[in-house]
């Protein structure tokens, strides 16, 4: 194995491939950092370029893009409070406040380092225990997926800072918005009003870009002209050494990072859900387990650690079923699958045997890209901070233009561009009404998963609901969901302040 890996590194270290990977990571970081452009888009747009390359070069480039883009999302999430990709939504919750308190560099440093560790951790899992893990993923069917979706949906309650009613409403509304389009399982059109454009429903990216980026511009319009300083908070690079955080802080975050890495890897392995979900779940669990959960959302580096470790751990997670079973774990790996196929390579259980050298070249490319990502982001840190010297009234309109490009790029139609305006308005109304946006996004992502798998599960068990409880994994998750709800109610009742609130509000 060591020998194969050595060969893999040998292949990757050729000038041609190294150059491609450097470009790939850099372009990936840009795609990740710019709201509206995502990892999926980076890989999709570059896939055709790899047609003319050999499989080693082509796949190395795609892998580099994947890693760069997954990590790059943290930059705008922290600096601008706009997640660059759906994988970095939870990074905003604590990265944004840290930035406002002048700890932007520290937040970025933490995000970069734990992105790196998360990725390396998942690549190690991919290299050493892939076949065993892949077998576990096979056990997950509709019943299990439904239970996981329900469990994750109940976590919304934790994110409902302020009014619980509004948080739950936002979640249910997100779920409701996701029901627009062709219904899962049964081919009928729902809530489309005969408009063919609505058949596919709303794209996740337009919802996110609208709720965060466009809403941010409207907020700026509301207050920016009267604000005394239009520039974002100045961040001093003086007195900042290395990544801007201490070894003690690093050690304190290790348990959190370990947990989040496992969550990211676990969710990444399951086909159909990926980093977009795992960063939120890891964040919530990290908050629940923290000694000081009340500081989450107000600038705790633990929040950044959880989100960034989890989303990057999803990379190895998503690659795992692809390389061992030939099954893509998310949208990016679905495109990577195409990258294999055009070179006549079919990923599957025999890939490690029939294409050993290529497999190890990919491993080497993954590791190299991760290291490149760390270096580029470390040295780029000073560059990213410079972004803040651009006044917001210049920066945000340019970001809006890029969001328009990104939305249009989803499937070359203006409908998606209109969607970002629609969700921008909704996001702005949410802010005005004191309604949190995060539950809406979670409802929107997990809703379809819950519904589709409910319907599929019922089909498999001939309409019998009991099958969800007789299935051990599903029953465990549903049980956890129930425990979680009870816990939420009990802890709400226990704290006196919340008690008053609870009675008043419900």
């Amino acid at each position, binding site marked *: 194995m060591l020998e194969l890996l050595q060969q893999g590194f040998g292949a990757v270290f050729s000038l041609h491939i190294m150059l491609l990977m450097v470009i790939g990571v850099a372009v990936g970081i840009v795609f990740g950092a710019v709201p509206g452009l995502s990892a999926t888009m980076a890989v999709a747009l570059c896939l055709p370029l790899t047609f003319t390359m050999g499989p080693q070069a082509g796949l190395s480039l795609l892998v580099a893009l994947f890693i760069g883009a997954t990590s790059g999302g943290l930059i705008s999430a922290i600096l601008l409070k706009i997640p660059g990709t759906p994988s970095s939504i939870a990074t905003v919750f604590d990265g944004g406040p840290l930035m406002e308190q002048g700890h932007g560099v520290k937040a970025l440093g933490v995000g970069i380092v734990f992105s790196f560790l998360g990725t390396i951790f998942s690549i190690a899992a991919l290299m050493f225990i892939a076949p065993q893990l892949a077998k576990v993923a096979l056990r997950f069917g509709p019943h299990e997926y439904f239970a996981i979706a329900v469990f994750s949906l109940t976590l919304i309650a934790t994110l409902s800072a302020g009014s619980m009613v509004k948080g739950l409403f936002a979640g249910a509304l997100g779920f*409701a918005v996701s*029901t627009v389009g062709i219904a899962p399982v049964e081919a009928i059109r729902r809530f489309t009003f005969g408009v063919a454009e609505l058949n596919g429903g709303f794209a996740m990216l337009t919802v996110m870009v609208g709720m965060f980026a466009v809403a941010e511009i409207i907020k700026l319009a509301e*207050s920016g*002209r009267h604000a005394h300083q239009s520039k974002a908070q100045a961040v001093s690079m003086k007195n900042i050494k290395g990544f801007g955080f201490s070894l003690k802080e690093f050690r304190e975050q290790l348990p959190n990072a370990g947990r989040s890495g496992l969550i990211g890897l676990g969710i990444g392995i399951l086909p159909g859900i990926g980093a977009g979900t795992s960063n939120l779940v890891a964040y919530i669990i990290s908050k629940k387990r923290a000694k000081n959960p009340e500081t989450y959302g107000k600038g705790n580096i633990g929040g950044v650690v959880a989100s960034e470790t989890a989303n990057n751990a999803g990379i190895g997670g998503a690659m795992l079923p692809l390389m061992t079973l030939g099954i893509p774990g998310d949208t990016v790996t679905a495109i990577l699958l195409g990258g294999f196929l055009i070179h006549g390579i079919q990923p599957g259980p025999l890939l490690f045997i029939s294409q050993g050298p290529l497999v190890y070249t990919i491993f080497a490319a993954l590791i190299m890209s991760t290291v490149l990502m760390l270096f580029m982001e470390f040295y780029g840190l000073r560059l990213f901070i410079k972004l803040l010297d651009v006044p*917001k009234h210049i920066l945000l*309109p340019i970001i809006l*233009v890029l969001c328009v490009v990104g939305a249009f790029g989803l499937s070359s139609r203006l409908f998606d561009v209109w969607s970002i305006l629609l969700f921008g*308005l909704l996001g702005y109304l949410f802010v005005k009404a004191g309604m949190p946006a995060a539950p809406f996004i979670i409802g929107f992502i997990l809703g379809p998963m819950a519904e589709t798998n409910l319907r599929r599960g019922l089909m498999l068990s001939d309409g019998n609901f009991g099958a969800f409880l007789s299935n051990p994994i599903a029953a465990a998750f549903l049980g956890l969901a129930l425990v979680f709800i009870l816990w939420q109610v009990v802890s709400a009742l226990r704290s006196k302040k919340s008690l008053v609130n609870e009675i*008043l509000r419900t």
Partner: protein
Amino acid sequence: MATTKKKELLIGIAMLGASLGYLLMTIQLPRHNGIDAAFVPSLLSAMLCLLGVLQLLSVRNCTQAVTEYHPDGEAEVAGGSDIKTVVKTLALILGYIALLNPIGFPIMTVIYLYLQFIVLTPLDHRVNHLVYALIAVVTSAITYLLFREAFDLMLPSGLLPF
């Protein structure tokens, strides 16, 4: 705190309104025996309506000031909300998207950026027309060429012949 109460009431009404709208649309879905495509929307409508009602009830019971949750406290920025700028910004984005196809991405982006920069310029800043125009043109050109040439993303060219 009459204003807070009034605002919360308004939010409650909006919530209930949206819920009822969704409920109404759900009722019109075609049904068949067993669990069908209207099952989950029905559950959701019920939940949304219930939460809307709870919000209204909480406003009624709310006799004292409730500390409002503001995700980033920006709503309270000194100087109050500048509705005029918000409306102008929305109109600009609306116009930008509406004319994107007929006029084309390159031209519309320049116009939008230039105007949006001016609209958003803080009151204590000078509007520098030349710099604004330059940034707008450069951004538009780079974005258009990069995506069209390197990534084959056919952004609408509109009036331009290429």
